[in-house]
């Protein structure tokens, strides 16, 4: 494990250096919020922000991605045959990703890599990415990462952890990949004071988490009992079935596959999709198993807090980033729903 300290005014030169071999993605101010974008020399990345509006999951799963291409020209011999487009996957570094979003990548990996199938697109992007995380000195009031197996300085999914010490950053490598990029970095060895300050900041950051969610009873709840609970209709009333929660969520990965063609050339692409949309489960026959809004709302919460738990036995598919809480247009709060699910006891009384 290697560690280096770099003063903030020298950080841009570190990024420049990395840019020689990697595409560098850093947090950039876009009008009123922060997004991860490919960092160009001309702009200042921001390091004082709560979290980016969209999570950096797009680095592994772009919102629109071409999977295959084809020709429809009947004169060519490969007409109608779908092929993978030749593509180079450049090395990329994402600097400033929050620990919640990094853990979310690890959670998502279970979906894209299984014993039987490997999503070669996601995996190639993942393998060419170095994750340099930024610990949260001041988590938001809506962050509940510590309740779901994560935390403001959690290391899962990161190659390097950066800690903001005020006028300088302490970089600590956590993996071989991390050690390699730190090796090239021009920085000082951390002093004992640096380490002490880092520990203090870490403890303070964790203390700053005020939002707590209990889900300890959910794993032992019977799946169908939770599914048939009476509170779903109430939870779902205000929902407008948009894609905000799913698109902003770092652990949502569902996508749609579509073909588009123009003239004799075409592509098969995938686009982010949402279980909130009515079309998501619509059969060709017209039958829709989740035709009602409450069924779709129930699906999202059951998937994140119960199905994923039962399927993989390793916690909920939520990292407590709080984006859905802050940006749901109608203030549906996953923390409240989790409590409802956690406390649910089926009423046996006859009314």
């Amino acid at each position, binding site marked *: 494990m290697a560690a280096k300290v770099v003063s903030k005014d020298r950080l841009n030169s570190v990024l420049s250096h990395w840019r020689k071999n990697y595409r560098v993605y850093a947090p950039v101010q876009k009008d009123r919020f922060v997004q991860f974008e490919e960092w160009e020399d001309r702009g200042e990345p921001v390091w004082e922000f709560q979290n980016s509006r969209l999570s950096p999951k797009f680095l592994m799963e772009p919102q629109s991605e071409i999977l295959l291409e084809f020709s429809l020209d009947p004169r060519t011999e490969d007409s109608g045959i779908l092929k993978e487009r030749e593509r180079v996957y450049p090395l990329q570094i994402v600097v400033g990703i929050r620990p919640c979003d990094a853990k979310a990548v690890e959670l998502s990996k279970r979906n894209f890599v299984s014993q039987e199938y490997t999503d070669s697109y996601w995996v190639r992007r993942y393998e060419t990415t170095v994750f340099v995380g930024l610990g949260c000195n001041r988590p938001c009031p809506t962050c509940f990462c510590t309740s779901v197996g994560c935390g403001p300085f959690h290391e899962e999914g990161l190659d390097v952890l950066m800690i903001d010490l005020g006028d300088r950053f302490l970089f600590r490598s956590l993996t071989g990949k991390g050690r390699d990029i730190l090796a090239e970095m021009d920085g000082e060895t951390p002093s004992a004071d640096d380490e002490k300050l880092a520990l203090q900041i870490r403890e303070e950051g964790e203390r700053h988490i005020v939002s707590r969610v209990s889900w300890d009873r959910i794993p032992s709840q019977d799946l169908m009992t939770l599914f048939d609970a009476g509170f779903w209709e109430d939870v779902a*009333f205000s929902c407008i079935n948009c894609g905000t929660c799913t698109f902003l969520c770092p652990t949502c990965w569902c996508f749609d596959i579509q073909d588009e063609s123009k003239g004799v050339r075409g592509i098969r692409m995938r686009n982010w999709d949402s279980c909130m949309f009515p079309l998501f489960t619509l059969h060709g026959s017209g039958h829709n198993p989740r035709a009602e809004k409450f069924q779709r709302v129930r699906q999202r919460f059951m998937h994140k807090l119960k199905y994923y738990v039962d399927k993989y036995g390793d916690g909920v598919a939520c990292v407590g980033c709080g984006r859905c809480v802050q940006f749901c247009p109608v203030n549906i709060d996953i923390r409240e729903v989790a409590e409802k699910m956690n406390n649910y006891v089926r009423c046996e009384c006859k009314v």
Partner: protein
Amino acid sequence: MLKYADKIRQEARDLLQSGEVDVFVGFRKGTIPMMNEPILIRDARDAEKLHWDSNCGINLANYLTKRKERMGVVAVGCHSRNIVTHIVENQISRDQVVVVGVPCEGMLDRRRIHELAGRREILEVLEEESGIVIRSHDFEQRHNKQDVLQENCAICIHRNPVIWDRLVGEAVKEQDGIDRYEDIRAVEAMAPDARWSFFQQLIEPCIRCYACRNACPLCYCPTCFVDESRPQWVGKSIDPVDTLTFHFLRAYHCAGRCTDCGACERACPVGIKVRRFTKKLEKDILELYGWEAGLSLDERPPLDRYRPDDPEEFIK
């Protein structure tokens, strides 16, 4: 605005107890600052959950369509105009809804308040007679309400409900001397290239989440045109042309019906000023047909009817 909360609870309680309505749609206090959640209650005892303040900008008329019950609903000026539009468009019948009208002096713009607070963490926002107080761990700010209103509220000319069965307070003075279309004229004055860039920049953050469409009470089509596959009118990716097509066409579908309630802008998770599209259509309809949406139960919107003297210069 806070003073209306008790009256709203009282009205809801009475309506449910008497059986005049089967359900009542209102707001409950949200779990984060400056947000409230729409709720539906069936039991008079739940009326105490109802809340009202200047963060009630979500358009409750959005929740009325496709329901068969008799509904009570809280509505300010613009939202009541959407209820009128629903009735005119046969989405609900007049006797199905009991409107609890609320005179409104404007809703708060959550994003603007975050900006004024320097994007620092906000613990709470309190409403006072004269304005608001933003409170956090280590700072406090005061602002006049005028400076923190939603953009559509700042230029509102229909603050009082236009349809109501119960009114929770005295009518407020309507604003006069308001220029509603200054920003639209600025775009109209642009040369085509500049205008194209303007719209491309406007829509650049769009992630096709459809929060704008779904928050809008006018968008109640069983299958939206973007979701059709036979034929597929619009692509589903974030291709900028497809995205612009969606926004332009949606605005056209709202022409003559939009009440500028701002629900679309409130809902957008990436802060797009969606009203830049719809307001242009509102201006055109006003200038061409002298029409404002949702003011009369007896007239159909201009794109819904034909008159021999309808303007035709745009038909070439």
